[in-house]
């Protein structure tokens, strides 16, 4: 009889890298499908090209690394699929396909594989890919489509609410909150948002951003569906709530306290809901900042990291000259992560008492 001899434990939970990656992809799916619904079939092609090229680069690099058999390839763990999907969701629906491929090449070849593939990347590959094409081809990445659920108004063109507000402020508008700026320029809102807004008093732009009736990248528009995906991941214990909660809370708090300063309205007058639900904040907080490889290991470290993300997002969004606040803030904190992990070590069992015992002596 043949028996296996291995070290204990002889039991294993059902966790696996593969199941984590596929579950995250699953959690992203509703928001991605919504993007395809509002932006049209081209958005689907962007996602597909992104996923295929990401997997292709992953396989090719593995191939040159000696993994010639496709069954043995690192493709099976699903991380390349997830990077492709996430990166596709972070691109505009009108982006040329060649840029999609370029973004994936940067994400997989430069960011993920330079230091050894899965687990060794020092920043989130999908975010890095997005930032790379954004700063290299800014005009193509800023050309946002207005979703088909909104009636297009010519004066708005292809700007997202956030970029529209930023341009308006640099154009000289002041003493108005972002919602007021949007309203005076008659930025479009959906009829549902207008009706909810009239009964609750919440800015219609916040409601549109929450549901997903705004321009933006394919996957970031519907805060609602992203939050549903995030709750699924937290319920399945794949991510912990620490990063998204502390990230969004710290950002909201800073926005409420100081955002009014930029608009000339003074302290404690910032508009929170519109800001939280627009831009890539929800996608970033739930799916980008929680990337396991590039976020700290300990709970305490995660909280520090999330507070840092919230702070830098606030700083860049309100006082930076460029958009991309969420991406840049997360990448910045990704770089700090190894340092956090070095210094934040959990309290060990039976150690505090040891120090106390020494003091007692």
């Amino acid at each position: 009889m043949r028996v296996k001899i291995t070290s204990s434990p002889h039991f294993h939970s059902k966790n696996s890298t593969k199941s984590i990656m596929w579950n995250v992809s699953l959690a992203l799916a509703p928001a991605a499908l919504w993007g395809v619904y509002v932006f049209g079939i081209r958005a689907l092609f962007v996602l597909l090209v992104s996923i295929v090229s990401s997997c292709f680069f992953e396989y090719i690099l593995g191939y040159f690394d000696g993994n010639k058999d496709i069954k043995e390839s690192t493709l099976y763990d699903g991380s390349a699929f997830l990077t492709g999907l996430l990166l596709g969701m972070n691109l505009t629906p009108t982006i040329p396909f060649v840029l999609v491929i370029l973004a994936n090449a940067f994400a997989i070849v430069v960011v993920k594989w330079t230091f050894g593939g899965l687990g060794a990347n020092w920043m989130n590959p999908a975010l890095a890919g997005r930032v790379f094409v954004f700063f290299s081809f800014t005009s193509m990445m800023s050309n946002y489509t207005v979703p088909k659920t909104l009636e297009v108004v010519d004066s708005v063109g292809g700007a997202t609410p956030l970029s529209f507000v930023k341009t308006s402020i640099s154009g000289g508008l002041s003493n108005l909150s972002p919602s007021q700026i949007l309203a005076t320029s008659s930025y479009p809102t959906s009829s549902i948002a207008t009706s909810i807004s009239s009964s609750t008093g919440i800015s219609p732009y916040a409601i549109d951003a929450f549901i997903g009736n705004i321009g933006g990248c394919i996957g970031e528009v519907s805060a609602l569906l992203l939050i549903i995906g995030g709750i699924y991941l937290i319920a399945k214990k794949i991510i912990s709530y620490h990063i998204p909660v502390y990230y969004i809370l710290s950002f909201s708090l800073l926005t409420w306290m100081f955002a009014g300063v930029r608009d000339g309205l003074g302290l404690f007058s910032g508009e929170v809901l519109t800001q939280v639900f627009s831009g890539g904040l929800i996608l970033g907080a739930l799916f980008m900042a929680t990337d396991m490889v590039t976020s700290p290991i300990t709970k305490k470290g995660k909280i520090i990291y999330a507070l840092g993300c919230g702070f830098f997002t606030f700083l860049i969004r309100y006082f930076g000259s460029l958009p991309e606040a969420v991406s840049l803030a997360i990448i910045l904190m990704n770089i700090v992560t190894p340092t956090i992990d070095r210094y934040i070590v959990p309290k060990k069992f039976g150690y505090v008492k040891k120090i106390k015992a020494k003091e007692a002596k």
Partner: protein
Amino acid sequence: MPKDVLTFKRGGVHPKDQKHFSNTKKLEKLPMPSLVVVSLSQHLGAPAKPLKKVGDVVKRGEKIGTAASFISAEVHSPVSGVIKKIIKQPLANSVVADAFLIEVDKDAEEVIFEKVDYSAKSDEELLNTIKDLGVVGLGGATFPSHVKFMIPKGKFAQYLVINGVECEPYLTSDHRTMLERSEEVLEGIMIAKRVTQAKEVIIGIEENKMDAVEKLRSVIAEKNYPIKVQPLKLKYPQGDEKQLLKATINKEIPSGKLPLDIGAVVANIGTCFAIYEACALNKPLIERVVCVSGECINEPKNLIVPIGTPISNLIDYCGGFKTEPDKIISGGAMMGFAFHSLDIPVVKGTSGVISILEENKERETACISCGKCVDACPIGLMPTMLYRNIKNGNYQVALDKYSLMDCKECGCCAYVCPAHIPLVHSFKTGKKLARKKK
């Protein structure tokens, strides 16, 4: 959740408990095997010195090995028969030591252990009896009991905590012992209380054994013993003394120290039964309860087995294998050792023989820094950092900064690891290499 159910706070995991295979099976005596292999290294510490030689005739219960140093234990013959050979016998935990191969004489006169009155004996005499009859901790670590119960001068045991947790998946030997031998176990506990002069006695039992809690409580009430039975929430590794003491008396053993440093002595249920047998029957530790279980066994059973019986006898008695197992494990599925052969004998520390299929076979991937191991570690270590440092040969960093030696190899980290990294294996290797380097 009722307030009187306690547990420890930090880390821990919830593996399937798998007790349903054998938790209703009554204790059964295994028929005398025709051959036993009695190892001289069945306990923690120095192997015993042999007292017999090849060709000697031994009687059941006769001493055949004697303690070689302070931390060591006596070894007795579990059968009557003739010593055929002295061989080097590897055990499941990869200890290789001299062992007596004894051929059982089926016609030999049966040795009967009769009840003796020990109430007149002094505490010291009782301690000597425990030592002389080879009692060791039967929870798995097999630490010689007389060393544990000998309270050094200046120390004082406030608590005697009895470990009825049995948090390892599959194992039910302590559970059945508590149910079927409650009176004996409690008497053994009272002897341990006398010897250690502990003020309070607490028995910690996990919630999946509430029948045992009730049984013990009723006997305690009947006999009016000063013993408290404490139900505990289900959580692995609650049976470890650090976690058990945190759960029951809410105290932390300082790193590198013993339970006695916080005024506690911990003993296992099986050990208490062995103490009872030693003191009340004058019977040495020559048999123990072994839980034969697992999904591959035809009829899982809780057997009373003479020490030294090859495990193949146990498996045959339980109807053999239903399906061919991937692994056969000595002890529980979380910390047990894999048997490499069916000829390995049962030793004092063998709490179970578990035949399992390997579930959830997954490829090992790179560490994705998810931090699940850090959350699961009951000691608050960072298994992923330990692993990285050991892998890169930075043993000193692993030892100093990440406290490698505080790891007790409970397996929580490797259990949850999504990358299926053999973390415990690397820590065991790391400890050995780090010791070598010193």
